[in-house]
């Protein structure tokens, strides 16, 4: 199986190279990037073949591609890939508007190619364990979630993460989709209403997008949840951030801290505490599932529709910021 990486706008593209390299019967066909300086430099660093254009990579006949552009630039590459019958793993959020998200899903359906959304949490070993126990009936009904997906300001990876045009927003756009997807996965129910409040107190002088955000949502099955999507972690916090939730059920509460599997490392070099993650690499399992899905000619465990539903909930949060009200999630 031949896989290509389209764009290094998202830093995950770099990590995916090493994931692909560790997989059997998988060939990293190469990489392409609209920023040729960035693309050639990273291709050289990771010893990957560099294609001078996205078209050139797609012409070389990949079975699948991983699209790692900025959030608002996924659509043309998804369309280009789908039209050539190439399967797509698309970074999250799949788009920053309803129109683009819907178009991305539709073009892949019409072309008969797999569209998978890069939601790595679906492949988190701790989350899979909790989901299995939930499905086994250990907890009874799920009533609500008290969830956080907090982080540091993501500009140390790429500056476009705080650009309203490229990212489609700030902390809400960055962090809502993961937990919405997890809760949809756990409850099997869709987000029905969304309320959100935000501010720009963290890094107020550096960015124009929201950096602090709290969201409250209800699901069709009457479950409800809050998400703290804030970029509230100082740059010197022991790690980048994290994802936690307290899941309240008929039989009590399960508290999940998805990135807790860390060593505390204190080093003379760092002069501060550092958490070094030893838990399993979700990206690896995620990419393996993408490849397995088209090898077995079946839908992946997390689809383009999942990406679309998460975008819809996220855009409802922005609608709520504007109106000050709880908004019904609009369906495309």
């Amino acid at each position: 199986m031949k896989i290509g990486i389209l764009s290094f706008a998202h830093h995950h593209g770099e990590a995916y190279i090493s994931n692909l390299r560790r997989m059997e019967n998988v060939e990293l066909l190469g990489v392409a990037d609209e920023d040729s300086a960035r693309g050639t430099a990273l291709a050289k660093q990771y010893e990957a073949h560099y294609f001078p254009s996205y078209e050139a990579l797609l012409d070389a006949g990949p079975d699948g591609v991983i699209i790692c552009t900025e959030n608002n630039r996924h659509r043309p590459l998804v369309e280009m890939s789908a039209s050539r019958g190439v399967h797509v793993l698309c970074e999250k959020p799949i788009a920053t508007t309803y129109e683009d998200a819907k178009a991305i899903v539709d073009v892949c359906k019409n072309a008969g190619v797999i569209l998978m959304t890069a939601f790595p949490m679906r492949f988190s070993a701790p989350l899979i364990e909790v989901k299995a126990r939930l499905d086994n009936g250990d907890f009874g009904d799920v009533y609500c979630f008290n969830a956080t997906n907090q982080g540091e300001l993501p500009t140390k990876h790429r500056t476009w993460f705080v650009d309203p045009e490229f990212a489609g927003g700030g902390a809400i756009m960055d962090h809502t989709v993961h937990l919405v997807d997890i809760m949809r996965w756990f409850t099997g129910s869709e987000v029905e209403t969304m309320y959100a409040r935000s501010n720009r107190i963290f890094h107020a002088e550096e960015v124009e997008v929201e950096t602090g955000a709290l969201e409250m949502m209800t699901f069709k099955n009457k479950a409800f949840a809050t998400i703290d999507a804030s970029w509230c972690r100082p740059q010197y916090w022991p790690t980048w951030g994290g994802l936690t939730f307290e899941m309240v059920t008929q039989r009590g509460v399960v508290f999940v801290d998805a990135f807790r599997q860390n060593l505390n490392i204190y080093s003379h070099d760092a002069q501060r505490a550092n958490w070094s993650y030893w838990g399993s690499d979700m990206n690896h399992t995620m990419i393996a599932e993408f490849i397995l899905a088209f090898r077995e000619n079946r839908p992946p465990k997390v689809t383009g529709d999942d990406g679309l539903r998460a975008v819809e909930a996220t855009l409802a949060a922005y609608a709520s910021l504007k109106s000050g009200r709880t908004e019904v999630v609009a369906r495309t």
Partner: protein
Amino acid sequence: MKVGIVGVGFMGTTHVAGWAETPAQVVGFVAETQLEAEALAKQYGAKTYPNLSAMLPDVDVVDICSPTHLHLEMIQEAAAAGKHVICEKPLARTTAEAYQAVQACKKAGVQLLVAHVVRFFPEYALARNAIINGQIGKPAVLRLHRGSYRPKKPAGNWFLDEAKSGGILMDLMIHDYDYARWIAGDVLSVSAQRVTEAHPNAPVDYGLAILTHTSGAISHIAGSWAYPPPTFITRFELAGDRGLIEFDSQASAPIHNLILKSGGNDAPDVGLPSSPVSENPYTTQIKEFYAALADGKPVRLNSDDGLAAVQISEAAIQSAQSGQPVTLRSLMEA
């Protein structure tokens, strides 16, 4: 200073222990029945009275530790008699009642001190001082969490009677509404949900609320009556533009009990982690109230704080019913 206590439940018992550490004298107790008050009265060398009216002539201060729905009438009666009032939180069951309570004391020229004891817990007080000293800059996002099991009381569990206690969104979470206000200032609006709104017969309850503050800060308040007994957990995370404060009662407990089962007893000796401090925060609170009443010393909260906490609670209750955010202003206009 002579003090009379109304209520001999957990709070009445805790307050009298605090008063014992002050020069004030607890002269009497009132309970639902005089019989209930006898043990505590005997222990502290005080009298029992059949009702508040009978006790008023003998006291300077009335300390109200009765169920929430009874507060207003007692406050009004004490204030009308010119007695200072200490009142357990919530100050009253509704904004309208809390407002009347505040007005009654202002009109009578007596003090009304509301026992928001969380302000006296050393971890909460220290975090606030750190913020006042500028250690984390301007507060932006506050997260406050308080969790336990459903309150159990042997007879007539008034905590579980929503009309009397206000339920989880009021009775439990009011502690953290008040603390959020103490840190980030006045609250504009509240959006809240709770499990028992959609599932009235759920075996557990859990509330979530988002507060917006006039300062621009936002607060997330979580309250749990969903943990197994005897769990009691508090956590907070106060994030500002120049730093972050984290607290977790479990992580910071200096004592963890991993005790083997007792001989001949199959039940495990479940022990909560404990975090002993040299002075019970309830006692710290009563001492500060005493100093305020006896010597006019500053006290860390006033009756308007008690009113505001009730307003936030009522807004949360209304929001959970309607699904829409509720402004505090709308409650005062109502």
